[in-house]
């Protein structure tokens, strides 16, 4: 996983509650056995006017002019601003893969669905929960300020607006370390292999039917 470094990124708004993982990446693209190449199909049903299937040349497909991310002003956005319960629905990690491949490194929302939230951290995406009042203010600024950018400083746990206003956010300390260092979870866990083996042995004694 790539290290998460401080950056300033363009903010794109998606002003909806309950954006589900079927909307983020529709099921027909889940048939891939790869981790890459999902970006062109992120929000496929909202983004294009025709029906998308795997293997299509997306550059030739008609874009939906009413979908906010298709607006020229949000091209190249790396921060997605949205509402509550973002990423609800299925556990498909294809959703964060698609968002990352699209170019998003940070998602700001009032709340996230649990599995999606988890999946973000495994892929170097930082999901940030902010109170509704801050999210409201950011939606206003994004709409009224062309090229509105935020600086994301994970080490300091701060979002900095162009006017210098600082918004603090909280993040789980362990997950923060993993993102900042680009650590592989599995490698970390295997450092405790001995403890896992001991636990497993004890369990075999206590609940042998689980190992029959």
């Amino acid at each position, binding site marked *: 996983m790539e290290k998460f470094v401080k950056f300033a990124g363009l903010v794109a708004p998606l*002003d*909806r*509650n*309950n954006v*589900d993982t*079927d*909307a983020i990446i*529709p*099921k*027909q693209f*889940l*048939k*891939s*056995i*790869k*981790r890459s190449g999902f970006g062109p199909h992120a929000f496929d*049903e909202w983004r294009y006017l025709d*029906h998308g299937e*795997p293997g299509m040349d997306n550059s030739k497909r008609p874009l939906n002019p009413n979908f906010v991310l298709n607006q020229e002003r949000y091209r190249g956005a790396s921060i997605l601003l949205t*509402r*509550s*319960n973002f990423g*609800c*629905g*299925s*556990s*498909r*990690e294809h959703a*964060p893969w698609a968002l990352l491949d699209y170019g998003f490194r940070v998602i700001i929302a009032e*709340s*996230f*669905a*649990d*599995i999606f939230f*988890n*999946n973000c951290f*495994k*892929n170097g995406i930082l999901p940030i929960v902010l109170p509704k009042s801050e999210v409201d203010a950011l939606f206003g600024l994004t709409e009224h300020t062309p090229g509105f950018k935020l600086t994301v400083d994970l080490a300091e746990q701060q979002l900095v607006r162009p006017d210098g206003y600082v918004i603090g956010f909280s993040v*789980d*300390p*362990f997950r923060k370390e993993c993102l900042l260092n680009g650590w592989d*979870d*599995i490698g*970390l*866990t*295997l450092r*405790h*292999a001995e*403890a*896992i083996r001991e*636990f*497993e042995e004890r*369990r075999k004694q206590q*609940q*042998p*039917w*689980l*190992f*029959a």
Partner: protein
Amino acid sequence: MPQTLYDKLWNDHVVRQEADGTALIYIDRHLVHEVTSPQAFEGLKLAGRKPWRVSSIVATADHNTPTDHWDEGIKDPISRQQVETLDSNIREVGALAYFPFKDRRQGIVHVVGPENGATLPGMTVVCGDSHTSTHGAFACMAHGIGTSEVEHVLATQCLIQKKSKSMLIRVEGQLGKGVTAKDVALAIIGKIGTAGGTGYAIEFGGSAIRSLSMEGRMTLCNMAIEAGARMGLVAVDEVTIEYLKDRPFSPRGELWDKAVAYWRTLHSDPGACFDCTVELRAEEILPQVTWGTSPEMVVPITACVPDPAREPDPVKREGMERALQYMGLTANTPIQSIRIDKVFIGSCTNSRIEDLRQAAAVLKGRKKADSVKQALVVPGSGLVKRQAEAEGLDKIFIAAGFEWREPGCSMCLAMNADRLEPGERCASTSNRNFEGRQGPGGRTHLVSPAMAAAAAIAGHFADVRDIL
């Protein structure tokens, strides 16, 4: 100190815990299907790692498999490649059990696990699938994980977790005639919202829950994820133990007795403290129908489509307006006047034998309306299918104009050929009414199997209590 069921399960699986609460949790059962596992197996191989304990793995192909013309195999080449990738990964790695495409015990992973006794009380159960919460019906700590975590479990037999908060949802009283576990689940989501359970492990309790069969409890826990919860739990009782007796992977003899003695401790102690409690009266729950594009957009069958104009929150109001537009509905329309094009009875929520019995009881001696273009019954597994056939349920469905299909996830998410066409409206026993879920442009109304059957007969939503 009195403990909740969740406390007991958590404490029983902590391998080690950091000062900040981050814990390594041991995983007893790893369910695997074809969609969310290929990248995990590949990652494992690329890193030169071996699976930690293959005897924890139970695998099946379910999402991509066709539900008719099995003799013709899987026609879609990308679907076929995904299923074949699972075949080769399991062949290479091994598993406690593998039910491949066309196997007589193949089926939806959340149906196959419990019916084979591969889901046992007190286990941690994970799968790259959000509806893993189903297995909480057996007092298992069971939840969905992403593909990176699938790889993590393969490599380490553990997950890095933090403990959730605990919520008790108590449903006291007796459910009315024609009111099922699905209606309870939808009524709960209607009450607390699709994010109401976020950050919580929910335990379902109360006399109405205790009177549910294991199938009903699985339906309820299955839908816990639609309330945003990490997991749903039901305490072990005689119903649980009776269900598990003599299943293929259930313990036997002395081990059975030992296991049962332990399983009987898997309930919340009297006086255990929950972070939050929600109460519902069973008698007040009516058959439910969703009207929008989120499971929380739900009303009783006797109600009308809600009016966004009465919603004060502008973001919610816009969401309701967008949902009505997508669903092709206008505010204040009586639910019972909404006509349907298709009916789907199936999915990990409602494809077990009891679900099929409930639908068949409504359909017996009746026919679907001519205006209903297609009505599918997709049993949850090969075993469910044969059980239903032994009971003659297939004949009732076929006589009523339904198609009797092979097992799989089917039209719940339309990864195979079973799907809605744009604009088609479906009474579906599945779990998600998201835009495009059952096919691009398709319109999904979530209902119980009995209510789906009632809608099939009437050609529009109807109150099953008037038929029974």
